[in-house]
């Protein structure tokens, strides 16, 4: 279009003066709640639900016994939160020797510290990866002991929250490199890597985690040479890693797909070898793109660690259940499960808030 030479009678030629934007109409609250039949029905339904939940509130808060050393003091009608207080050590640390309990505590402190340090994308880099490796080595040394005057604690005595956190963290961390290769393999144009990757990913994703845990805890020793004995926790960890790898691979594949082909073509044009291009150009961008969905997988894995109870690994959930078995307390199973559920809830919500914050940052600026 070169100029505005065309003129039609039905097209207005004058430019209208700018008008104020119409004010946002705020619906009055009452109208939102009871404006039409549907809203009224929804409001009534919501109020009814709140009413229906009142006995639970009564049980959990009003009638509850919060602090008592005497199990008999827990009243019949209310929750016995005093039980959680009395059994806190057992639920959090399981069978770990009480005199060495400071070790898992420091371990968790280290883990929380490392996680907090890693939150800021500004610090992501090679150094952080090395720091994590050192930290994980220290965590495992603390848990195992057997060196530097620390008493040896076999994994059969590990338990509670440290096991839950270690399993979630390590299965994600160790699953990640495998996931990268699986994702690259799946995207590969070569038939054999792609078929193998697809087969592995889809098989693992098609199976329930309980099935994988059964394989790891019962079958794995039969599949390995008799000189290799990996203990139960190690095998469970292997199953979780394989599971995490398959799910992470699919997330990373999503990131790879989002990288335009032009990137790799440009690298090729510059004479950069294929693998170098993947390593330095494609992967960093792909991983950046998928960090929000990766946190989703992290939430899934945190929740999935609770399944290890089924193969008899003494995680936080098993510890809670065992604690509730004590007959001196009035069968506080609900309290135990609620408490354990609350810890999981806090972990998962923290991760998802972090994910939201990160996503905003990713949108705000392209950090490199």
């Amino acid at each position, binding site marked *: 279009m070169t100029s505005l030479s065309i003129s039609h009678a039905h097209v207005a030629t004058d430019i209208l003066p700018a008008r104020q934007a119409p004010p946002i109409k705020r*619906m009055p*609250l009452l109208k*939102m*709640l009871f*404006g039409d039949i*549907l*809203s009224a029905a*929804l*409001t009534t*339904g*919501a*109020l009814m*639900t*709140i009413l229906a939940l009142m006995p639970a509130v009564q049980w959990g808060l009003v009638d509850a016994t919060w602090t008592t050393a005497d199990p008999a003091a827990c009243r019949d009608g209310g929750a016995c939160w005093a039980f959680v207080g009395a059994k806190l050590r057992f639920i959090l640390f399981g069978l770990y020797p009480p005199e060495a309990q400071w070790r898992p505590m420091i371990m968790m402190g280290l883990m929380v510290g490392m996680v907090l340090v890693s939150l800021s994308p500004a610090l992501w880099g090679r150094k952080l990866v090395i720091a994590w490796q050192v930290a994980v080595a220290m965590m495992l040394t603390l848990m195992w002991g057997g060196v530097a005057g620390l008493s040896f604690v076999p994994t059969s005595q590990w338990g509670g929250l440290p096991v839950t956190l270690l399993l979630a963290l390590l299965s994600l961390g160790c699953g990640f490199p495998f996931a990268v290769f699986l994702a690259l393999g799946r995207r590969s144009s*070569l*038939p*054999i*890597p792609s078929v*193998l990757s697809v087969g592995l990913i*889809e*098989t693992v*994703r*098609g*199976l*329930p*985690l*309980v*099935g994988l845990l*059964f*394989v790891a805890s*019962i*079958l794995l*020793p*039969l*599949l*390995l*040479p*008799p000189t290799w004995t990996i203990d139960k926790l190690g095998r469970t960890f292997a199953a979780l890693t394989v599971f995490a790898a398959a799910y992470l691979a699919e997330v990373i594949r999503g990131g790879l797909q989002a990288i335009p082909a032009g990137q790799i073509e440009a690298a090729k044009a510059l004479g950069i070898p294929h693998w170098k291009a993947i390593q330095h150009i494609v992967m960093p961008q792909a991983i950046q793109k998928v960090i929000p969905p990766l946190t989703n997988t992290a*939430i899934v894995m945190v*929740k*999935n660690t*609770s*399944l290890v*109870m*089924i193969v008899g690994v003494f995680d936080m*959930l098993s510890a809670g*259940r065992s604690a509730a078995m004590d007959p001196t307390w009035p*069968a506080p*199973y*609900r309290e135990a*499960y*609620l408490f*354990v*559920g609350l810890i*999981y*809830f806090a972990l*998962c*919500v923290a991760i*998802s808030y972090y994910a939201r914050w990160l996503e905003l940052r990713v949108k705000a600026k392209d950090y490199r």
Partner: protein
Amino acid sequence: MLFALWDNRRIRNNVIQVLLFAGFAGLLFWLWSNTAANLAARGIRVGFDYLNRQANFPISESVLPYDPSDTFGWAYVIGVTNTAVISLTAIIISTFIGLVIALVRLSNNPLASKMAALFVGVIRNMPLIVQLLFWYALATTVLPAPRLAFNPLPGFYLSLRGLYVPAISLGPQAGPFAAACLAVLIAAVIMRRLAPISAWSLSKWVLLGGLAVAAVVLLRPSVSFPELKGFNFIGGLRLSPEFAALMLGLVLYTSVFISEVIRGGIEAVSRGQWEAGRALGLSERHVMFRIIIPQALRIIVPPMTSQYLSTVKNTTLALAVGYPELGLVVGTVINQTGQAIESISILLAVFLTISIAVSMFMNWYNAHVALVTR
């Protein structure tokens, strides 16, 4: 010379592929030979002949008839059908509840939508197994002993032993009748394809009326009421606390995820569609159900598939609350026979088959939906 070969991309790729394949085959062979050596050294027999032996262990509830004198093979079938029943029931109920939650969250009503959001946040951030154990603990601590059962309606009893309701039992002609119904249904479908619409609408009523008459005449349904005899209720239809806790936990958990999928799908439909619908004078409900949801469906189907699949996989957690799905049956069979390899293989094979079948069906459906809309 060799370097030159390595520089050739095709040759290099082929070498990599051959090495990869050899490595994978080698790994498989290594695992297989380890297993064979281990089995031989420990004197463990492998084989599926135990499937024909008498199982001798009880299964607490099943859809198909089961007795401990049945075979191990039949016990697996019971496990598979129990898994299928809980999966299907949970999926169907969760889809409805999920849709409701999604619509409530999208509604203009601030109270209802905030409450739905809170509910979703709480349920999706706790592991399913914790929720199942909680519901089961709740069921077994809150419900009364059978002698003190709640009796809200005549014939309805709610106690620790479960919910008992009157059962309608059918006469011996139930089987042939079901077959006849199926035949009529197929005939109706064919008729619908062939016959003009007007003829169809008339014949439909004739068909239904005929079926109703046939049902009463042929089946002679009788009602059995549960009653307390000795320790337990006898008669009627029973819903066990294990089933109830499992279903409650599974449905709440699944419906929350489904509601998120549906909400995402609905929000992905552009606002212009809403506005256009309103401009045409359609009511909100019509816009939602006639314009938005059909379009959202295309976006919803793929993530919904994986939700359904994970629900099927999640049923394995039932073994934590003692509902005898396939996982529990497999565990029991391993205890009884020691045939761990065979039992776990069966478990894995069943789930892989379900997964593959569902994804194939959903792919087909996906293609179907895509074709119809554009």
